[in-house]
């Protein structure tokens, strides 16, 4: 279970009073689970905090809480110190003197200026402050919790669609509005992975660096075309959105991005008019490999035979434990370069009925991804748009590859390539059309 360091409790000013009661010390586990689902939080944190005291501090710890204005219940007030949390009423904290720890409600925590990251003074009675986590008797219960979140999100999205209501309730938590057909087809919402620590390089027309959906993300960018990285085309922002977009886009936008915690490496190898050269692209690949990006996504190409330089680049990637994925092309012809290099994974496009898109190149194909009517980010002011192409299928593979890479340190380079193919959803069309099938995210 990953512990989040330095994380402040989520602010939700529109419902803080409700949450204050729900996430209090007396909240039932069912209430806590429901609240977590409603805020779209699958981190397994309950929203409460555990404060642990240094040994033998006794009542000093209790005093430090009261000094901060918290209403403190004490287990010693109960017969045999048998406390049922639901019985403590509206106390902000419940102290267990025998074990030197206290449970504190999320609201009180935030309001009283406590934080997980807070510097704990040498002379403070506090040893540690950590989030409280749900515990499950059976590991499959944890899966059910996460799947329940996804089903709830999809059920609500279905209800809204069938009611013919295009105007979504502005109060709805964006997480509950669902995800794009492509993410659902790749089983992304159910995945517990997010790609933390797995650098993903996208070599394209750059990125709208000021797009609100990428605020706070780690972005390293470099141009290889003599224009600033800022994307004035849209293709690059759209592809980066699919591969690495946020878990909860701004407003009521459905989720459209896969690896939402990866560091993003945006390499501009295509100009704002969409043009580039092999030389510029190779410089971009060189940069991505020099930065040791485990996943390198290229939604670009030309209808040429295999190019030696791309094959050498793919080989260099694999020998460094990195993986290049590239779009097969949209000419309904044999796969173009660089995807046709044997050392690069070629991606075909599928429609939402999971059949090969009519434009998708064929022949040398390793895997397929959603490529028809793909919703993702585009540069401001438009912010979002829909595009079709093997260009859109490719970042689905790149995003899923990042999730797989996060799941196991051994899944790098060729091992990652093989795992993506081995876990792809088999389809009825031949490999020359759809490779080993539709890419899938890990559990």
């Amino acid at each position: 279970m990953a512990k989040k360091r330095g994380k402040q409790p989520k602010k939700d000013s529109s419902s803080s009073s409700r949450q204050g009661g729900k996430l209090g010390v007396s909240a039932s586990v069912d209430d806590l689970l429901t609240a977590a689902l409603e805020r779209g939080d699958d981190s397994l944190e309950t929203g409460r905090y555990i404060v642990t005291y240094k040994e033998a501090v006794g009542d000093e710890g209790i005093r430090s809480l009261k000094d901060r204005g918290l209403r403190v219940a004490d287990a010693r007030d109960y017969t045999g110190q048998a406390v049922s949390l639901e019985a403590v009423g509206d106390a902000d904290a419940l102290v267990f003197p025998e074990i030197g720890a206290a449970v504190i409600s999320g609201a009180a925590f935030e309001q009283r200026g406590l934080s997980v990251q807070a510097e704990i003074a040498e002379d403070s009675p506090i040893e540690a402050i950590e989030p409280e986590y749900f515990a499950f008797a059976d590991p499959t219960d944890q899966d059910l919790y996460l799947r329940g979140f996804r089903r709830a999100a999809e059920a609500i999205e279905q209800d809204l669609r069938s009611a013919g209501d295009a105007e979504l309730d502005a109060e709805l938590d964006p997480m509950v509005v669902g995800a794009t057909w492509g993410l659902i087809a790749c089983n992304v919402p159910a995945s517990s992975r997010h790609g933390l620590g797995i650098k993903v390089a996208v070599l394209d027309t750059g990125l709208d660096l000021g797009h609100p959906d990428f605020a706070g993300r780690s972005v390293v960018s470099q141009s290889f075309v003599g224009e600033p990285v800022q994307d004035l085309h849209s293709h690059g922002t759209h592809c980066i959105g699919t591969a690495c977009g946020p878990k909860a886009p701004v407003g009521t936008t459905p989720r459209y991005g896969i690896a939402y915690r990866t560091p993003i490496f945006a390499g501009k190898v295509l100009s704002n008019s969409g043009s580039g050269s092999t030389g510029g692209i190779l410089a971009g690949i060189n940069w991505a490999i020099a930065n040791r990006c485990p996943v390198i996504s290229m939604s670009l190409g030309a209808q040429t035979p295999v190019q030696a330089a791309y094959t050498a680049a793919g080989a260099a990637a694999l020998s460094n434990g990195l993986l290049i994925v590239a779009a097969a092309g949209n000419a309904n012809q044999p796969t173009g370069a660089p995807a046709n290099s044997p050392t690069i994974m070629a991606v075909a496009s599928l429609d939402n009925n999971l059949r090969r898109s009519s434009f998708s190149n064929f022949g040398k194909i390793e895997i397929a991804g959603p490529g028809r009517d793909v919703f993702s980010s585009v540069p401001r002011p438009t912010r979002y748009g829909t595009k079709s192409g093997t260009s859109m299928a490719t970042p689905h593979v790149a995003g899923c590859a990042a999730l797989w890479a996060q799941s196991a340190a051994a899944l790098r380079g060729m091992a990652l390539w093989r795992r993506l193919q081995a876990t792809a959803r088999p389809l009825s069309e031949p490999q020359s059309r759809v490779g080993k099938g539709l890419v899938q995210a890990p559990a």
Partner: protein
Amino acid sequence: MPQKKRNWIVTTSADRPITTIAKDLEKAGFSIGNVNDEIQSISGAAGDDIVEKLRSISGVVDVSADEPIDIGPPDSPDTW
């Protein structure tokens, strides 16, 4: 009149240091653009008349024309 220079991509073998190959290319008349030391290629410009000479340099695996790539302008019907 000197031959008009075109852009080329030279792919190199890992058996010889890429910086050494780059020096030999320059001596033969190749104007170096980028040395991609991670991926064994060097981009640059040269007249068509010296391409065969470049191909004979030790450690040069391939010399190919630098192809343009075009995914079309935004909202183009022809894309990739």
